[in-house]
């Protein structure tokens, strides 16, 4: 069985709503890039059930905050990160999610705009070693959406989640691409 399918099946059987985010979501939106772990978005209220389901597969907690759970994988399963959000946030992102197939399983990913918001959020974490991949993802997702940077919703998302310099950074990267 492909390595991701076991994870999706376990979470579905446990009744855990989740969205695939990160590199896999970016690929499923049509931008080719690589990644080495599986990022899932889940709601606070589903965390305990998700943890239990994944523990049953052999996953062990490597690091944990209220924002994410980094799980060490058993052999033949992918490393997983659970990005934990409040229930209202999960519901709002889920409301516009897109259905895709991954490893033979039907999964959901945030639409491009919400995924851009998640990526912009990541660029603002000054503790992270690099945000280069996030910026490349943002520009690629913008190309996929075919939406103008003048689009009011997009401008709001960029300002809200990327901060005051994000729009200039995006423009610079688009000019140089």
């Amino acid at each position, binding site marked *: 069985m492909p*390595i991701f399918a076991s994870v999706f099946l376990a979470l579905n059987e446990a009744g855990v709503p989740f969205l695939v985010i990160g590199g896999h979501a970016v*690929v499923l939106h049509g*931008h080719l*890039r690589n990644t*080495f772990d599986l990022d899932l978005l889940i709601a606070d209220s589903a965390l305990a059930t998700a943890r239990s389901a994944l523990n049953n597969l052999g996953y062990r907690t490597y690091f944990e905050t209220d924002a994410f759970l980094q799980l060490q994988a058993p052999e033949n399963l992918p490393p997983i990160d659970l990005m934990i959000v409040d229930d209202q946030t999960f519901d709002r992102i889920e409301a516009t999610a897109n259905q895709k197939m991954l490893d033979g399983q039907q999964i959901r990913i945030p639409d491009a705009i919400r995924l851009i918001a998640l990526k912009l*959020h990541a660029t603002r974490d000054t503790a992270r070693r690099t945000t280069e*991949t996030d910026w490349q993802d943002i520009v690629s997702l913008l190309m996929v959406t075919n939406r103008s940077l003048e689009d009011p919703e997009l401008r709001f998302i960029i300002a809200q989640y990327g901060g005051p310099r994000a729009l200039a950074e995006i423009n610079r990267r688009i000019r140089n691409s």
Partner: protein
Amino acid sequence: MEDPEPLPRLTDVSVIRDNSDPLSLPTPREPLREWTEQGITPSVMIAEMETMMRAVQSQPDFEARRLERKTAAKFRY
């Protein structure tokens, strides 16, 4: 008229990655439609990502290096 050049496939891994630093993964700039024209579909790419995961997972500092890439602040929408 000559036959066109054979299209690159994922067996030619040089198309998509550089193995010099497995945790510093390249992101091609081309949108997928161009890659799709070369026969590389999302499902093929996902399979390649699985292979990449298996390769880097055995590195002793793998989890620590993964942790460096995490965002500490909680996302709200």
